[in-house]
């Protein structure tokens, strides 16, 4: 029997503000007289969602802002009720929906541990026995008897997470909590999550935007879009779809943007003005997509107000979340002098090794002392297509496609 069952869940909200007492009375009167003319506009936050979760599964729910992720979690935690449809949960639930909801600024850390324990339904005895462990995990020994209002925001969240994960529930609901604290603490939270999932075999519903983390931790993922379930499949398939959607959104934004803006937003000394970038393969100019493993030519055109000797120019590829994949600079090969007036640089990649996806191109021009003259990320977005190669033959878990020579040796 599935531990969570969601059947045809639909949630509608009224748009606009809640009405005043006067308006409500007037509309009630109108209704009584049978003149029900007034209807507020309705918004479907969730539209006919159905899925089940078996015990021990870790389900990641992703989607862009406003896709309905948090609304779905609210239904699982029975904070709100569906407009139509049904949500059945068989087991106790620990909602970590925004950790620290119950943290009171006036109370000390220790007092808050007990208060939040009670709010989450943890018996006082258990809190008492786990107190040291909680304080230890939160790394706040020194400040535990100080009111939380004097804590930094990171400290507050650390405290909240430490309390919430000490709860012993069948189902954990996590909303964006992995993005708390500094990197070291994030690592620790992540380890704690993995331990709960692997060793204690808990059912976990996790929601967020950090797709890489969620993909790693989940056994299944669901992607929502505008309140509808788009795909319910393996983490890899879902995250690929997520990236595809993100990239589409970025390309759409790019096309809407006026390009003369680029110079205004770039980090620049004002000496150099970027004119344009052109990408071509096999002597045809490519507007939005290029093909993997093809010779690729990138042409950069800019205007300089002065001369710069021994300057350097680098071009790079990055993902939509700004992970730099590759950067290459002209200075490594030749001494490069920038002349006054229009300059053009042509860069040819013999075999483009970047795996299909949508990427940004960044450009950076520096002077002889490595001082930045002009630099900007995402001056152009470009989609890389698999071309002739079948998508299934390409690994989707990485970014660079290396084609090595293989040799099989067998001992006789």
């Amino acid at each position, binding site marked *: 029997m599935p531990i969570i069952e969601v059947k045809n869940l639909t949630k509608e*909200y009224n748009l606009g503000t*809640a009405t*005043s*007492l006067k308006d*409500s009375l007037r509309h009630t009167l109108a209704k009584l007289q049978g003149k029900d003319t007034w209807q507020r506009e309705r918004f479907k936050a969730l539209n006919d969602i159905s899925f089940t979760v078996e015990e021990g599964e870790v389900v990641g729910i992703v989607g862009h802002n406003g896709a309905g992720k948090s609304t779905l979690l*609210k239904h699982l*935690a*029975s*904070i*709100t*009720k569906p407009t139509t449809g049904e949500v059945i949960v068989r087991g106790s639930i620990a*909602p970590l*929906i*925004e950790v620290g*909801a*119950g943290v*009171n600024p*006036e*109370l000390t850390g220790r*007092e808050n541990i*007990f*208060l939040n*324990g*009670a*709010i*989450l*339904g943890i*018996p*006082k005895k258990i809190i008492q026995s786990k107190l040291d462990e909680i304080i230890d995990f939160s790394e706040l020994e020194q400040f535990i008897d100080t*009111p939380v209002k004097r804590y930094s925001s990171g400290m507050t969240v650390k405290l909240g997470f430490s309390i919430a994960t000490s709860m012993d529930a069948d189902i954990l609901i996590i909303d964006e909590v992995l993005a708390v604290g500094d990197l070291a603490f994030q690592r620790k939270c992540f380890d704690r999550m993995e331990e709960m999932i692997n060793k204690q075999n808990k059912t976990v519903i996790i929601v967020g935007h950090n797709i890489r983390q969620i993909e790693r931790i989940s056994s299944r993922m669901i992607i929502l879009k505008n309140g509808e379930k788009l795909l319910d499949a393996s983490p890899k398939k879902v995250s690929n779809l997520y990236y595809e959607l993100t990239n589409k959104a970025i390309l759409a934004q790019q096309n809407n943007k006026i390009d003369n803006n680029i110079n205004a937003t770039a980090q620049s000394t004002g000496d150099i003005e970027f004119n344009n970038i052109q990408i071509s393969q096999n002597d045809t100019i490519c507007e939005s997509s290029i093909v993997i493993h093809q010779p690729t030519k990138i042409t950069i055109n800019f205007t300089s107000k002065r001369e710069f000797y021994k300057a350097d120019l680098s071009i790079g590829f990055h993902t939509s979340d700004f992970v730099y994949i590759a950067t290459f600079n002209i200075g490594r090969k030749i001494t490069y002098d920038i002349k006054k007036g229009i300059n053009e640089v042509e860069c040819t990649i013999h075999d483009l090794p970047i795996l299909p996806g949508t990427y940004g191109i960044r450009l950076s021009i520096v002077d002889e002392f490595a001082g930045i003259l002009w630099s900007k990320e995402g001056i152009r977005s470009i989609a890389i297509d698999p071309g002739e190669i079948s998508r299934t033959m390409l690994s989707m878990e990485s970014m660079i496609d290396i084609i090595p020579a293989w040799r099989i040796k067998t001992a006789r």
Partner: protein
Amino acid sequence: MITVAKNLYQYRELIAALAWKNIVVRYKQSYLGLLLAVLKPIMLMAIFTLVRSFIGIETDGTPYPILTFAALLPWIFFQESASEGVSSVTSNTALIKKIYFPREVFPITAMVTKLLELAISFFILAALMTYYQIMPSIYALWVPCIILYTMIIALTISLFGAAINVYYRDMSQLLPVALSLLMYGSPVIYPLSLVKQKLLDEQMAGEWSNHLYTLYTLNPLAGIIDSFQRVLLKGMAPDFNALAPGFILIAILLPISYLFFKRAENWFADII
């Protein structure tokens, strides 16, 4: 009603923790602390005693200051519990939007929180009784029942008011005004025996007198205040005739108020 009791038991630790939080938060960083809480009945007692010296109110031989203090004690407990209860849901927005537990925990917590201030007022009452040399009789054992009954009345108002207040914040503004008006309709400044004497014995309002008295005692606080004074100061059993109309009213209203709250509860997180 059985589920209410079950929930109450299941969430007793939460109610205790939230009540404790309310108290700690209110009195942290304040030196006078709880003493401020009992300032209100003492001040009112002083003012009423002063006013009475001009207009004269019959008290059946019990000293007026202690009589009015014994009236203020349950009255203020009721008034503050109800006011706090009505705004208890809206003042916990963060919790309502994040975590689910039965929402009646909030109004109940508000009642429990006020018990502490009531307990301190009892010390003052004890001091006054020592001063006026009044010994409590065996009937004082009624006091816990009377307090519990007061809490139930405050809860009846709170459940209904708190649910309304989520939709229309007017409620938390209106209620204190309405309650301070109700104080004049309750035997706080004057004793119930005076009302009884005027209406039942002297038939002041003619043929309407008996009905008016029933209407007066429909206010459950009339019976409560009178009983409180009787069992503690006069060494008499509660006057059940004065308690009955109010009790029937509450017995009808409490389930309605509770069901109303439970129905509205489903949309709290969406509307609040």
